[in-house]
């Protein structure tokens, strides 16, 4: 049950884990903005992809949009009680 101890270890230090994650996110954006490290000239297909942190914004906005729009769609009549098809 060493795995369980590992999970407990991380859960007990949730604050630290969150901080580490935030630092990683920040680093990711910084690294992306450095042309010497990430070659955008040869790989990007469109102009917006060359903007720093474009894909970070894409991921975040995409995620929020998917959740909000899907839930709106679901509550517009698609989500029904579980016995909907029962007779």
């Amino acid at each position, binding site marked *: 049950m060493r795995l369980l101890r590992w999970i407990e270890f991380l859960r007990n230090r949730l604050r630290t884990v969150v901080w580490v*994650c935030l630092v990683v996110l920040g680093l*990711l954006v910084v690294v992306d903005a450095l042309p010497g490290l990430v070659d955008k000239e040869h790989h990007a297909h469109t102009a917006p992809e060359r903007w720093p942190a474009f894909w970070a914004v894409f*991921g*975040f906005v995409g995620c929020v949009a998917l*959740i909000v729009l899907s839930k709106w769609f679901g509550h517009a009549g698609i*989500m029904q009680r579980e016995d909907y*098809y029962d*007779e």
Partner: protein
Amino acid sequence: MSDWWVHPASILILGGLLLRWVPARFKRAYLLLVPLLVFGRILGLTHGTFGQVQFLEWTLVFGRVDALSTVFGYIMSLMCLLGTLYGLHVRDDGQHLAAWTYVGGSLGAIYAGDLLTLFLFWELMALSSVFLIWCRRRPESLGAGFRYLLVHTAGGVALLAGIVLHGQATGGDLTFGAFDVKAPTLATYLIMTGFILNAAVPPLHAWLPDAYGEATFNGSVFLCAFTTKTAVYALCRGFAGMEILVPLGVIMALYGVVYAVLENDCRRLLAYHIISQVGYMVAGVGLGTELAINGACAHAFAHILYKGLLFMGCGAVLHMTGQSKFTELGGLYQKMPWTFLFTLLGGLSISAFPLFSGFVSKSMIVAAGFEEHKLWAGFLLMLASVGTFLHTGLKVPYFIWFGKNHCRPETWARAAEPPWNMNAAMAVASILCVFIGCYTPYLYQMLPYPVDYHPYTAYHVSETLQVLLFTAVGFFLLICKLEPEPTISLDMDWFYRMGGRAFRWLARQPVQLLDTCVGELYRVAGMVPLMRSARLAGRFDQSVIDGLVDGLAHSIRGLGQRLRAVQRGHVQQSLAVALGVAALFILLFLLFSSDPR
């Protein structure tokens, strides 16, 4: 048969048929041996055309072995081995037989060189896989199985109609090769409809979550791999470059993601993600370039493993707790930590995290989209990746193993790590997912075209990590909106489920009313006059005919009675009396008439 060629499917089907006569103590070894033999047979196949059989005026080709069929045959047989290992402890021979026949159908379709053989195995797949749903033996499973069967029968009919029309147009040539995608005919569209129904392209997709959410815990592990990916193979073979498949694939990729947000059942959620992931492959087939077809094949290969792994993880939860709904689960990391780890690895693979299998396969298709200047397709597929990580990478592990504990006491008491064989199958699948992601030549060398693609560029890694990790930020910020709700989501199956009900109402109400009206009309206009005329005829018969006959008989009887009264005694007596009287009269006459002289 033109030559002796052992079809891999025949080993599986024969092995399945013999299963019930295998003694119980050898059964587990046998269950592993047969898929191993099949895997070995597939490794030993050489390229070429084998197993040709003359049937009427057609040549059936059972063994077309080339680069495309080899990569699919390889992964299908590998998945069969993993799926069987996962369900090794299941003491239901029927279920193993159904699963193996189903895989046999898939292998048969993959190695088929003509459309008739393809159709034969295509239908075998549908017919055998339905038992994996029925074997769960819930009342709901029965209905889900019948719906699954009916939808696939409809697809099979479309496929057969297409094959017949195609054969007519080509003068009987039924070779299964690339169709003319630039000038598609009705036959081409019908065959494509048969294929895309099995690939679960909306609006022909609702059978998939309906069935895969309802199958047995190990049945879904098989189901998630074979039907859709055999269809992807068939599309790669026949419809590479068919333009319409690009938008259809992109729609699929997003459709699955949207429904996954709403889903409360973890296996149905995974099923919607099959639709989403197969969307990438269908779009890749539509793009049709060498990179795109390689991408479709690579993604199918990787997908079979990680989706199998995810279904194994959720299947283990279902098997051990009896629950598959997020609203009935939560906090299980304390009870099933290893299952959590394996499922998480599957989630990272499907989300295309660097060093995992999805990263090296999915990106080929997206890159092909961008290279073909279909920018909209590229960006929308990237958006679908956001949704994939959101649900399969985050929502599934979080709401089953962490989050609020919704487990009922009995669920919590039952929960434990699954049997060793299930863990072993998950471990092997996990290792393969990581191996494919880390060592790209393993997969790339199997692909049908030479690969000149390098996924591990700084740009691609940076792009992927940004998209995925900022998706995680969005997930944790909006986690309250993602709290599971005990609902079901209406999908296209609404039309045939409610349509069936409408048909039944139609049969019960208007059709029955019409039937009653016609019956009444028949009674009033037909039966009543008929009865009346019959009654009249009866009366005529009784009073006139019977009267006449009876009267005659009556008269004869009366006459007889009278004659009887007149007639008495014996005839001899009467004759004697008559003769006596006559003699007396004669004597008297002689006496009185004699001359007195």
